[in-house]
């Protein structure tokens, strides 16, 4: 795509790739995604099947140990990981898409439209999102992965909208936008070639934040028993662990390991995001 070739030569990309934090974050994230892909292929069990003796700590046969009822925690985790990443991706895309559109329009158009959109953004931002999700999820008879992702995506977009709006406003007042306007460019070309293209590295960073936000919200819901009605998810595993008093019975692996994998994924994304933040603004780039 013509636009992508432009961005490749961009100095930001050079600094992004050479940043240590980005490298650490990316490799960790890659490992976890690999686990989500390979895991379900190599495991001998299904996540519902009674794989062996219950109450069994991590060992050669059961890498993450077994639950009280004898299900294999490793299998449950890797399958749960898949659904979590999928939800995070879809939700992140939706939230970023809404956020970018609202941010661009509010930032570029300004005036009354800007005030109204920002009012909406602040209203959604002030909400404790989980509370809203609980109410909506409670009433949804069927909760599939996609409509969970859509649901969560609809509540976390304000972060993108605010960030994109401030960037759009500063880019709008730049001279090359004036030059495009006196070259009689149409508004869409200005919005995409002049404004969005220069924000691409920024939008990518914000997408990572949305991806993280969606995962945290979704797993939170699953933990409260409001996750997808069918299939397994990380939140569900941990909810079962808490419900069956796994910790009191000493089965730390049942509750802690799935959460640890999830936390490592979030940490890896956090490293990428902080690294990109350093790569993209010189002031943070400490020699």
């Amino acid at each position, binding site marked *: 795509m013509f636009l992508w070739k432009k961005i490749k030569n961009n100095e930001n990309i050079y600094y992004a790739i050479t940043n240590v934090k980005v490298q650490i974050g990316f490799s960790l994230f890659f490992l976890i995604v690999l686990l989500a892909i390979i895991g379900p292929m190599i495991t001998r069990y299904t996540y519902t099947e009674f794989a062996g003796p219950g109450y069994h700590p991590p060992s050669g046969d059961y890498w993450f140990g077994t639950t009280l009822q004898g299900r294999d925690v490793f299998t449950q985790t890797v399958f749960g990981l898949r659904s979590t990443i999928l939800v995070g991706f879809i939700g992140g895309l939706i939230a970023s898409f809404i956020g970018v559109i609202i941010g661009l329009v509010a930032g570029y158009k300004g005036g009354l439209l800007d005030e109204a959109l920002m009012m909406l953004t602040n209203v959604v931002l002030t*909400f404790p999102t989980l509370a809203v999700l609980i109410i909506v999820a409670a009433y949804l008879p069927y909760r599939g992965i996609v409509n969970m992702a859509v649901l969560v995506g609809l509540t976390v977009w304000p972060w993108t909208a605010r960030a994109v709006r401030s960037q759009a406003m500063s880019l709008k007042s730049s001279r090359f936008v004036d030059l495009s306007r006196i070259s009689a460019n149409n508004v869409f070309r200005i919005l995409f070639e002049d404004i969005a293209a220069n924000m691409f590295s920024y939008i990518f960073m914000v997408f990572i934040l949305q991806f993280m936000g969606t995962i945290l919200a979704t797993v*939170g819901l699953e933990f409260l028993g*409001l996750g997808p009605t069918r299939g397994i998810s990380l939140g569900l595993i941990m909810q079962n662990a808490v419900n069956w008093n796994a910790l009191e019975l000493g089965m730390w692996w049942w509750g802690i390991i799935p959460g640890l994998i999830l936390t490592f994924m979030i940490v890896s994304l956090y490293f990428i995001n902080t690294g990109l933040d350093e790569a993209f603004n010189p*002031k943070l780039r400490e020699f």
Partner: protein
Amino acid sequence: MGKYFGKKLAIYLATFFVAVTINWLIPRFMPGDPILSMLAQFQGLEGGQEIIQSRFVQSFGLDQPLIYQYLNFWRSLFRGDLGVSITIYPRPVIDIIRNSILFDIIVVLPAVSLSWIIGNKAGAFSGFNKKADSFLMPFFYFLTSSPYFWFAIVVVYVFGIRLNIFPTSHAYSSGMTPGFTLPFIINFIRHWFLPFFTMFLVGLGGWAIGMRNMIIYEKKANYSEYMKSLGAKDKMVRRYAFRNGVLPQVTGLAIQLGTIISGAILVQMVFSYPGLGYRMVQAVQNQDYFLLQGSFLALITMALAANFIVDIVYMIIDPRIRASYKEEK
């Protein structure tokens, strides 16, 4: 100054209005009829059938046109009549909320304020000290990335089970009678500690990282360079940089409140600590719609009130806000 207030107030009123509307809309337009499922729960209760039937129909006003139902809903809201809880029948929802809020506040308030203060200090320290920065930051990244409920589970396991120095559920031991007696207070505090500790630690990371980045910006700002070239010691440069770094962290507090309260719901779930969040989750699991709606509204109001207080504090301590609203375009 007035403009700043006006804008903020408008947002909060709009938010409250939207929250109430969501509350009213959802049960009426969601697929499946929550009223029937609620009534279904009362097959067993003899005699109660008719009372509940009339009570729900009347409070939902299903016979009146929608607009009346809506206005009726608002009127009952202001009268404080949030309906009756089913699980703890017939206690009015407003009472349950009133004493649940107390548990919320005593955990969230100290946790947030302490993590904000210590987080900012730690962030500033690592912003000025490169060596500390290299090992403090990864720790804060881990803290701020760990989901609230998972961290709660780890805390329960480490402090509650392995070390067994703190109880891991409920606000006080079931045998105790609440009152201002010393044993009760000690028992209460021991139950309070782990939820508080979880909220504190998970929150700490975010503030530290935010402040560290702010300090790096402020350290390189022109006013810092000017002070140094006129002979100001590092201590003064740090004090000025910290002052300018702390202000945006106050607005950060307002923005993070939504996420913090969401976190509180999950932490209360793990510790079965009877705050609003816990009540709300119970209401969901028992399909107790009135309690669910009531606790949702209470949570939103709490978030709005906290936001408003933070805005006032920010407006007072940041001269730029006061000045910027005098300066013309």
